[in-house]
């Protein structure tokens, strides 16, 4: 049962990777990477039970924290870049 769940999560991660590679915009890529990160957390949790090593759950928790901060930082970067672009356009 753990194996089936782990396989489903792995297939989903491949689908998210295809979306991240094919784009078309940067927001699609961020969305796919965010999905990939969430699925990594789930995969770590399931694998920790699959192999009976529940200390993997600490890794899952740490990865969830890092992933969230990373996505927010990337979005903030693109948002502020867009803002400065529109400001320049209006300033002309």
């Amino acid at each position, binding site marked *: 049962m753990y194996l089936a769940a782990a396989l489903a999560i792995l297939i989903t991660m491949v689908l998210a990777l295809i979306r991240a590679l094919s784009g078309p915009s940067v*927001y699609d890529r961020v969305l796919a990477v*965010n999905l990939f990160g*969430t699925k990594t957390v*789930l995969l770590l949790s399931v694998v920790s039970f699959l192999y009976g090593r*529940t200390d993997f759950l600490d890794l899952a928790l740490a990865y969830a924290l890092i992933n969230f901060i990373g*996505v927010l930082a990337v979005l903030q970067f693109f948002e502020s870049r867009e803002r400065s672009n529109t400001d320049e356009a209006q300033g002309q």
Partner: protein
Amino acid sequence: MMAQALDILSWAMLLAGATFVFIGGVGVLRMPDLYTRMHAASLTDTLGTLLLLGGLMLQSGLSLATFKLLAVAVFLLLTAPTATYALANAALLAGRLPKGTTLPEDFKQ
């Protein structure tokens, strides 16, 4: 008897969660534009996460692992909608609109 019932329940939750996660992945790949993709990803994300982690919690009983799983679940449930909101906000500010819609006349950015 009780343990068997818990086992069956947790298996069902794991399978349902895996199915939802898979549906979310297909939605992200197949949906026509950014906002529908976001919709597919975020909705199935929260439900799939809850079901999968809930199933694991039922398997581990009352232990430290359950508490860690609970922490992961709470954190994911707090951050996933926040990340989706930030993504939609950034995309809308960048001028991307949902397919087939236009901005109202008096809209100011």
